[in-house]
């Protein structure tokens, strides 16, 4: 009798847990849909670490019809005679005849059919009339032609004077107002995709989303003097530089750099710049052949990990994103650093990712790092002059084609701003999946990047000299996590790069 009561009590206690497991739990923060018509929360649930959305919610929001094929267990989603076929056994879907992969297959939860939220951008996006972009890290689902710039903030110098930079990418109009104890940046956009550093630093107490919509507030310390702000726009990114002196220091002015002067008009036909969409990714598996890279005492080698992750990334990019991929090496061979850049340049890759695994002198260093090229004086000169040294050559249609003249060994100089944007996206996506180093994004004179004539970055996935990281680097979970992160970052960068193309 006593046993029966105990078992009954245990079942009663476990029932709610089983119910939660079946129904899922709400995510830490809701997904917000942003469209011209307005914004709304999109209900999703977390089940076994996977964020799912009910297909009936998708039908309501996007005006699609959902039909279940009972004999096969498959599900068909139709939008204006275009169909998506979902498999209940495989994490794939056919969207308009094109196969895309999903993190999980369609599942049933009670009377509802659930799909991973990635379904929206990967499967529905290709057949929908309007653009659908999912930014899971910032919990945004953008539909249609909406302006949602990424707004980042960082403390450059603790000081005093404390220096900080706010980056708005892509560029949209903004105004800066210096108020008592704070600086307010108003950004003309439908919404913001913010990423600010936590906590206080120097004379800046906090950089955060402002109280008014589409504003950023920089909260100053009580000991701060009158700040100076400078706004500059380059390569599609607006940078607002803030310098906060200590109280009592001379007040400074707020300036906005004038846009570059319009070149004088001539009777020549306007130059023709070919519109070429982002279509090719160059993946460089670091080291190889005689060059082993970092190795552990028990034989794990950097060159083997980089090649394996490169292959995983290629598979994702080709099947999910539909872009072409060129690998600098597909097997265990020695390649010079110039050969690696040449493969990317000769194939006119749109982005260059060099994959590496790090090593330190001590065992405590851990986490992924991203390197972007830093320029010395020569490189800065090339960067400043790259536009001026563009040469207009006659084109077949009677116009002129702009050809940039850049020294081979400094080709990266003209792409630094975009490489920094790429690094930001890589860092955000990696941070969601793998541990990051305290110095996640760094600038350094990295040889393989100097000759890359496209946005480029080095990704150091982990430290093989750290026992725990080396252990994880052997496994599929870590390698798939890195490949997923790099894939997501490239997908985001493609949207960013295509948006910058001339219309």
């Amino acid at each position, binding site marked *: 009798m006593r046993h029966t009561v105990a078992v009954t009590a245990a079942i009663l206690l476990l029932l709610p847990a089983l119910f939660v497991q079946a129904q899922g739990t709400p995510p830490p923060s809701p997904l917000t849909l942003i469209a011209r018509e307005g914004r709304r929360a999109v209900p999703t649930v977390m089940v076994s670490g996977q964020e799912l959305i009910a297909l009936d919610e998708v039908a309501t929001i996007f005006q699609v019809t959902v039909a279940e094929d009972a004999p096969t267990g498959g599900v068909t989603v139709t939008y204006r005679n275009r169909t998506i076929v979902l498999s209940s056994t495989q994490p794939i879907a056919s969207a308009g005849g094109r196969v895309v992969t999903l993190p999980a297959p369609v599942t049933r939860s009670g009377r509802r059919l659930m799909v991973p939220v990635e379904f929206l951008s990967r499967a529905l996006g290709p057949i929908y009339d309007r653009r659908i972009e999912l930014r899971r890290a910032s919990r945004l689902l953008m539909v249609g032609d909406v302006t949602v710039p990424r707004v980042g903030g960082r403390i450059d110098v603790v000081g005093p004077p404390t220096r900080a930079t706010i980056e708005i990418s892509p560029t949209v109009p903004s105004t800066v107002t210096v108020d008592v104890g704070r600086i307010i940046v108003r950004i003309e956009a439908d919404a913001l995709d913010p990423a600010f550093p936590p906590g206080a630093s120097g004379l800046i107490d906090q950089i955060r989303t402002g109280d008014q919509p589409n504003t950023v507030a920089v909260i100053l310390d009580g000991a701060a003097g009158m700040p100076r702000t400078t706004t500059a726009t380059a390569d599609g990114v607006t940078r607002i530089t803030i310098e906060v002196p200590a109280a009592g220091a001379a007040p400074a002015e707020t300036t906005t750099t004038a846009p570059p002067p319009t070149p004088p008009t001539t009777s020549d036909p306007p130059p023709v710049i070919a519109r070429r969409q982002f279509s090719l990714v160059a993946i460089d598996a670091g080291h190889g052949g005689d060059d082993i*890279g970092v190795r552990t005492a028990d034989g794990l080698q950097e060159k083997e990990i980089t090649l394996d992750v490169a292959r995983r990334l290629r598979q994702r990019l080709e099947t999910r994103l539909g872009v072409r991929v060129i690998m600098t090496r597909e097997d265990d061979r020695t390649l010079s650093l110039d050969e690696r850049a040449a493969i990317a340049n000769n194939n006119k890759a749109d982005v260059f990712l060099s994959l590496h695994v790090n090593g330190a002198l001590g065992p405590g260093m851990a986490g992924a790092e991203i390197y972007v090229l830093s320029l010395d004086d020569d490189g800065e000169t090339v960067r400043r002059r790259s536009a001026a040294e563009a040469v207009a050559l006659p084109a077949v249609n009677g116009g002129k084609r702009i050809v940039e003249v850049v020294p081979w060994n400094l080709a990266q100089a003209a792409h630094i701003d975009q490489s920094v944007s790429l690094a930001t996206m890589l860092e955000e996506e990696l941070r969601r999946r793998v541990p990051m180093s305290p110095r996640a994004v760094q600038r*350094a004179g990295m040889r393989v990047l100097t000759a890359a004539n496209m946005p480029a970055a080095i990704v150091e996935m982990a430290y093989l000299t750290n026992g725990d990281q080396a252990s994880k680097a052997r496994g599929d979970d870590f390698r798939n996590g890195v490949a997923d992160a790099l894939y997501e970052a490239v997908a985001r960068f493609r949207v960013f790069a295509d948006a910058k193309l001339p219309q």
Partner: protein
Amino acid sequence: MTLRRILPAAVGVALLALLAWGVTSLLERLASRAPETPNAPAAAAPSETPHISATLFYATPEGDALLPARREVPFADGLVAQGRQILTTQFEAPPEPYVSAIPAGTTLRAFYVTAKGDAFVDVSGIAATHPGGSLTELLTVQAIVNAVIANLPAVQRVQILVDGKEVDTIAGHVDIRRPLVRDMSLIRAKETAAQ
């Protein structure tokens, strides 16, 4: 009754032993004192070679940054000779708790400075034993470049050569094809004296 007789005797013996030890120690100290001669060289000098105090750069035990450290380096007559001494000391094993960012076995083949203030540091054995990794390679390069520029004001830039030749990198990452300027990005904390 027996205890009353033994206790004073034991105390007496102990006092005598203590007195004898004290007298012996005093005599030994007096006997070992060096004779005072007003013209003797400074007793603090460890050797006859004059030294300079130079700022060298070593890695933290974790290898995440470089720490500047003041070290005694043999004095040499002239810029190039002094540069060789600084680099030779930089390449030696550092004192605790520092860690060398330069692989053991690295040797200095040559050091020279051009009229423009570009120094050339020609090393050997650095690539074969380098542990690899972007960060560690950055530490290696910055330790060499900063050690020269921090101590020789006439030098503005440093180019590293390996076995007498220009090379792309030491271990596959950091560009050393051209002379490099001082880079303090990986330097942490203030300088301390290292013995």
